[in-house]
């Protein structure tokens, strides 16, 4: 019975605090909202970055040209070695001399091919190595390039082509974007936690007299903390909903701007179903953790 009374009191008090200090409440909710939106966007960007670069560079692939005398079993053996050595290798496919000729013919101007004996077009068997962009990091990529560059000294390997000239640039861009993105995300997450913590502390600081008085009339520290936790949670829920709403609005707006079929082939679905749950969870977590951290430090130096 007393537990019910107390819980009801905490809920009332938490809600009352919010309405008593509308400025503080607004600061809290907006801090959380902005953090959620920024972190969400950056997460999305990081997630999309791979897809984008992949699409742009036409995939990260290597072509290992083999000597004409290399047979399918020998090639398969080489494939196994590649895969074993490099977990980043997603796929290795063997292509015969015939397939290579066909490919080369397609690359040549049609007028030229018409006048040409097919046998004149040079060709040789090759392995197409497709890399998994998600698994590569800067260091591994360097090692991989070196290792594959050295491959042509191996018996049976004729030459190694690094897909297009742009793979290196693409990869360095991807890697740079990732490092930058992870760094910015980290800064934002830290900033968010920091802001919530300090706003909570400023708010608690502003309530210092109130807290002191409550302690003097016999309130336990947890009696004082509970309404703040509830307050943080309510703010978190509000921020979760608000940020979801903002992203939903932006999605609608961005879509009309960006969705011109000719130019935008990148799917920009910011809000898969269930996303609202993530926003809510993030908001509640940040709100609760922030207020908890803000309080713990504070109540210690009060008696």
């Amino acid at each position, binding site marked *: 019975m007393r537990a019910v009374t107390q819980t009801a*009191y905490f809920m009332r008090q938490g809600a009352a605090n919010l309405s008593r200090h509308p400025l503080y409440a607004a600061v809290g909710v907006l801090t959380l909202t902005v953090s959620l939106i920024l972190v969400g966007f950056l997460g999305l960007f990081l997630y999309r970055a791979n897809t984008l670069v992949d699409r742009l560079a036409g995939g990260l692939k290597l072509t290992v040209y083999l000597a004409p005398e290399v047979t399918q079993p020998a090639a398969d053996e080489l494939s196994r070695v590649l895969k074993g050595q490099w977990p980043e290798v997603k796929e290795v496919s063997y292509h015969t001399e015939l397939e290579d000729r066909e490919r080369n013919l397609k690359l040549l101007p049609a007028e030229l091919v018409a006048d040409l004996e097919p046998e004149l077009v040079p060709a040789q068997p090759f392995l197409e190595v497709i890399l998994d962009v998600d698994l590569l990091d800067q260091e591994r990529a360097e090692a991989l390039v070196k290792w594959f560059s050295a491959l042509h000294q191996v018996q049976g390997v004729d030459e190694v082509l690094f897909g297009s000239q742009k793979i290196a640039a693409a990869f360095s861009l991807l890697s740079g974007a990732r490092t930058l993105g992870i760094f910015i995300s980290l800064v934002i997450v830290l900033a968010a936690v920091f802001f919530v913590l300090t706003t909570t502390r400023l708010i608690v600081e502003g309530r210092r*007299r*109130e807290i002191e*008085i409550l302690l*003097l*009339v*016999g*309130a336990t520290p947890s*009696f004082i903390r509970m309404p703040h936790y509830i307050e943080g949670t309510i703010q978190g829920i509000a921020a979760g909903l608000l940020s979801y709403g903002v992203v939903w609005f932006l999605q609608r707006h961005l879509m009309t701007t960006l969705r011109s079929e000719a130019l935008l082939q990148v799917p920009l679905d910011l809000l898969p179903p269930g996303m609202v749950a993530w926003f809510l969870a993030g908001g509640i977590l940040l709100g609760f953790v922030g207020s908890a951290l803000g309080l713990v430090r504070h109540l210690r130096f009060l*008696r």
Partner: protein
Amino acid sequence: MGAMIVFSNVTKRYPGGITALDSLSFDMEEGEFLFVTGPSGAGKSTIIRLLLAMEMPTDGQILLARRNLRSLRESSIPFLRRNIGTIFQDFRLIDSRTVFENVAVTLEVLGLTPREVKSRVAQALEMFGLTRLARHYPPMLSGGEQQRVAIARAIVNDPPLVLADEPTGSLDPLLAVEVMDKLLEMHRRGVTVLVATHDKGLMDRYRQRCILLDRGCRVGEHISGGDA
């Protein structure tokens, strides 16, 4: 009945070198009424702060209801305070809560239901003529009104011990007598009451034990109202 409060050789020195209490000893029976008086800075409020465990003595022992405050665990301080109704010299009202809510905190801390809180607070406000101010905030009250709110908050939960620090400093003579009568009535119902004051006129209206402090030392003890 045993001793409610025992101070034995209590010294309180603040950082900076001020000695607020200097080896002070006195005791108070359960149900007793005691005036503590003395000039500004004598240490009256310090006694009250020590009894509430807001501070620890530098030296000496304090027993409160037979419990040594030195060996009290931090976590049991709130439960100690719930048995003490304190009227602070500077009122200590919560500016952001209404008069009603300020008086209610004492009961809410105890976990009473909203219904009980409501009826008991209403009664206390009525007692001090504050009913029409129930929804006002402390900064909107006159000095005397604020002091009466502080008094109502201190006694609304009928505590066994009341510590009153200058409870009539902002009250006109009529109200002062009313408040003192209230405290004496509680004393007659068995409540232990300690009143720190320098209002000699008021003390002289009552025949009660009275301790005189000066610079943290006990310099006298007498029964007030002797001349009257």
